[in-house]
């Protein structure tokens, strides 16, 4: 598997001169499976440049939505394959236990319809279908997908993708320490832990500094310390902090990355096993698969637009 981050910002896009290195687009991660097919994790505004860069492919595109907050679906309307006749797109997302008869299609349709959008789902020329993701396991191509409900505001899933002997856990919006000191929780009581346990790579919410978190308690996101505690408890190979606060500039994120990296090592993590996600960040999980080596967390390229274009590789 190979990953590429197309958007790592949380809450709302944050473009501007202060966010050129980590990027301002909201959540979207491209996963290239071992057979060359593509999975997309979330459809924030980062999916727009991904859609422009994707080569035409007859195989279905699978989009796994963690939840339906706007920063995770806003880019759907501008995803080029949605407007390509013949493209087959399958969108997965959480069911709504409070209203089981409300389908995923109808809930996404609230956004993809008037007055919020100029087109309706039924007008899209592609072949798009919607599936409530079971909180269990299923297969997409060569990958096994597992979904589980996690602590956030509203129905929210985390995903685990396993392919070719490697595994990724993606839990971008998650507040497992809500109401209880995370380090004191037993494993069985920690939201999302089984999903992440032993994964080679975990992309996890690290929106706030520890100092900021008390002012945002219950908003559904984690402070850096909880992201680290969660990752170490899950014994993941590497941790990539995700869902950056829109108020955090590149310089602030650099400081968080440095502090997080030091804390990761202090907690027993391998040096180099922690990074903050940035647009253009590419991670090759196939490299070193045979010996279980930790993937290299390449930093994002320095904002050259061309670097964000898909070039046949990640």
């Amino acid at each position, binding site marked *: 598997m190979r990953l590429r981050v197309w958007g790592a910002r949380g809450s709302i896009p944050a473009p501007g001169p202060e966010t050129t290195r980590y990027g301002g687009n909201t959540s979207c991660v491209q996963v290239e499976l071992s057979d060359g097919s593509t999975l997309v994790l979330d459809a924030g505004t980062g999916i727009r440049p991904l859609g422009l860069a994707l080569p035409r492919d007859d195989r279905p595109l699978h989009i796994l939505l963690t939840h339906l907050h706007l920063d995770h679906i806003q880019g759907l309307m501008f995803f080029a394959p949605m407007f390509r006749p013949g493209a087959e797109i399958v969108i997965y997302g959480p069911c709504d236990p409070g209203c089981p008869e409300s389908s995923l299609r109808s809930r996404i349709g609230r956004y993809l319809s008037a007055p919020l959008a100029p087109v309706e789902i039924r007008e899209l020329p592609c072949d798009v279908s919607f599936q409530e993701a079971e909180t269990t396991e299923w297969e997409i191509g060569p990958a096994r997908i597992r979904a589980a*409900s996690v*602590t956030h505001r509203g129905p929210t899933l985390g995903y685990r993708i396993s392919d070719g002997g490697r595994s990724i856990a993606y839990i971008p919006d998650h507040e497992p320490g809500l*109401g209880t000191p995370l380090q004191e929780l037993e494993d069985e009581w920690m*939201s999302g*832990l089984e999903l992440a346990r032993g994964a080679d790579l975990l992309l996890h919410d690290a929106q706030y500094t520890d100092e900021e978190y008390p002012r945002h308690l219950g908003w559904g996101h984690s402070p850096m310390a909880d992201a680290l505690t969660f990752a170490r408890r899950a014994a993941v190979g590497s941790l990539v902090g995700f869902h950056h606060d829109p108020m955090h500039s590149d310089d602030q994120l650099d400081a968080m990355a440095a502090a997080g990296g030091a804390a990761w090592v202090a907690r027993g993590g391998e040096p180099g096993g922690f990074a903050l996600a940035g647009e253009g960040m590419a991670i090759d999980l196939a490299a070193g698969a045979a010996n279980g080596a930790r993937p290299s967390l390449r930093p994002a390229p320095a904002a050259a637009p061309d670097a964000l274009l898909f070039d046949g590789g990640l």
Partner: protein
Amino acid sequence: MEGSRPLELILARNLLASLSTPSFLVDAAGEIAFYNESAGRLLGRRYEDSGPLPAAEWTTTFGPFDDDGQPIPFDQLDLTQALRGNRPAHDRFCVRSLEGPMRWIEASALPIVGAGGYHGALVVFWPVDEDGER
């Protein structure tokens, strides 16, 4: 998935851990999955010291007890029957603290039902006298 509590119970535990009202969580199998600090003070044993308790152990240790002082089996409680029917329930019991005499409590219970069905119940309780006054 194995080894993980349903999210609905995890969220309920987070709430209970923040309450000063004595309260506990029962899982779908009837095990006392968690009780908070206030409940632990009232019962004389902290959750951190006991961990989860099977229903049978809970009832023989803490009650509730009938008028003869015999523990009432968990399955025979009206409250249990109501919860398994996905209905809230309220009742008055006699329980025993490990550090003191028998005492009366009133308990209100809410079933926890999520996408996967019945996951257990959230129970809050408070001490009262025999006439039901606090």
